């Protein structure tokens, strides 16, 4: 049973008392075992003066040596929530629960998951169990809700072209938040909604975002009063080192090609028309 895929909708849970308050936070999703990008980000982010750093889940998968990414997150001040990958690993499930339905997407997802499951220590699996599904805080006068896929389902894909305004409004209404942040798709996007509401896909630092460049992306959110500013920032890192390690671990050449070229070669069938059109394959 894939228990983590059950609904985790937040209707009626307007728990905003006693949440932490910040003015400037750094967010990223999808480490995908890219500990080199993660380490580079954590080493260089102090100059951004973020009061808190959040990882929105899916720490393992795709890349090499998953334990290294867990250790970085466990040993730093990053607050992490659970993605579908993290939940699957912590429960020892036989698949990542990414939510793919196409056999080609599932083929590569399974290679990635089997490797990650085999190479994740018991201690790190136990840590993954402790991660929350949702995180709330205030950013100045705005209430911010963090989740992995969507507030109602950990593995829901919220692409820009597949997420209607009224659905995002409903998520925000149900949770009592002004800002909803999520990841899971691998592509960053931001939309300001009516009523000073905001939806932010914070992107991923694990692999490039299908735009032909090798850098990855993270997000900086800043607020003054009720004014929100959202910055997407590129992260350049030593991807050739990552490629060397992926080769040493016999990870699929298709994955390595993506890290090298910036074009996705897998997980393509889940992508809607508009996003797919912007890629190469």
């Amino acid at each position, binding site marked *: *049973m*894939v*228990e983590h*895929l*059950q*609904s985790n*909708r937040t209707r009626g849970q307007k728990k905003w008392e006693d949440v932490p308050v910040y003015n400037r936070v750094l967010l990223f999703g999808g480490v995908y075992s890219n500990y080199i990008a993660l380490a580079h980000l954590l080493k260089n982010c102090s100059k951004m003066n973020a009061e808190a750093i959040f990882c929105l889940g899916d720490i393992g998968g795709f890349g090499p040596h998953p334990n290294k990414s867990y250790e970085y997150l466990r040993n730093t001040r990053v607050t992490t929530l659970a993605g579908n990958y993290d939940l699957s690993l912590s429960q020892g499930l036989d698949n990542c629960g990414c939510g*793919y*339905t*196409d*056999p*080609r*997407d599932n083929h590569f997802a399974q290679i990635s998951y089997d490797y990650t499951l085999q190479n994740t220590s018991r201690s790190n699996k136990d840590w993954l169990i402790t991660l929350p599904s949702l995180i709330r805080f205030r950013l100045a006068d705005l209430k911010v809700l963090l989740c992995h896929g969507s507030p*109602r*389902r950990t593995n829901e894909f919220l*692409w*820009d*072209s*597949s*997420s*209607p*305004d*009224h*659905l995002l*409004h*409903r*998520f925000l209404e149900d949770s009592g938040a002004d800002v909803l942040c999520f990841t899971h798709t691998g592509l960053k996007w931001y939309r300001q909604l009516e009523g000073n509401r905001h939806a932010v896909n914070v992107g991923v630092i694990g692999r490039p975002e299908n735009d032909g460049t090798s850098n990855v992306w993270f997000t900086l959110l800043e607020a003054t009063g009720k004014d929100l500013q959202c910055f997407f920032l590129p992260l350049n890192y030593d991807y050739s080192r990552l490629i060397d390690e992926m080769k040493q671990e016999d990870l699929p050449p298709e994955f390595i090609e993506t890290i090298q070229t910036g074009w996705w070669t897998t997980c393509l*069938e*889940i992508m*809607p*028309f*508009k*996003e*797919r*059109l912007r890629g190469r*394959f």
Partner: protein
Amino acid sequence: MISNREIPKADFHDLETLWIQISGTLCNLSCTHCFISCAPDNHALPMMQTEKVLGYLREAEELGVKEIYFTGGEPFLHKNFLEILEVTLQNFPTSILTNGLLINENRADKLTRIAQNSHYSLEIRVSLDDYEETRNDSVRGLGTYRKVLSAYKRLWERGLLPILAVTEIREYYSPDDSPLDAFEKYVELLGSLGVLRPRIKIIPIFEMGMLPTPDSPTYITPQMMTGFDHSLLQCSTSRIATEDGVYSCPILVNEERALIGDSTLSGSLASCDLYHTACTTCYATGMTCKNY
């Protein structure tokens, strides 16, 4: 017979997907495997009134529905279809399930304009049933193979990245004559048309409608639902609106038992019976009628 067995139910989670049976059971083809026996003279489910479609769209928006799928029959038979589509895409990501026969140059141009004018994705799914012409035409009708591929190419050339939807009817009719990897055959076929990024969806067949019901039907038992994630079943997150009311499943719109609620979407949001052999196919294959 299903009278003496215990019927399990699928929990209802949230209405994420609304299907709209816009052209009822009216189709310009009579495919030999159609699960609801659509045909030019099948009026079992009538063409939907435009105002009724718009009413369901308004309710779907209020309920926070994520996406709309137009199906039939053949959606392009509806006289106001393109206008309805344009309105829909202003508020929803939208998909069309079509046999492609009515997508001429003019309609392809209009679809392109409509897709470009929306922030949301328009997915066009064109049906084919074999990578060999004679086999396809024996299922879908003489001449359809070439027309379907022409329509697919027309859409591809306009950058609409259509999805080719194929059923496993070849495996059903000729299990010993099926390739190990049918998918590659379709990639090869589309490649011959110059399609570099083929999007292909393979769908199991349902032994109902035009196909004979199985000699030994299998049904979902309550025990099978123990520990099963109900959200993997389409009826936990989708409904289908027709001229005659709201049904729990796009496969079961010919089934009075699948009619649910009071013809409103909000009245249909309840658990539903997993009583049909089609439910077993959904359960066993993990299939979704959605694109992905």
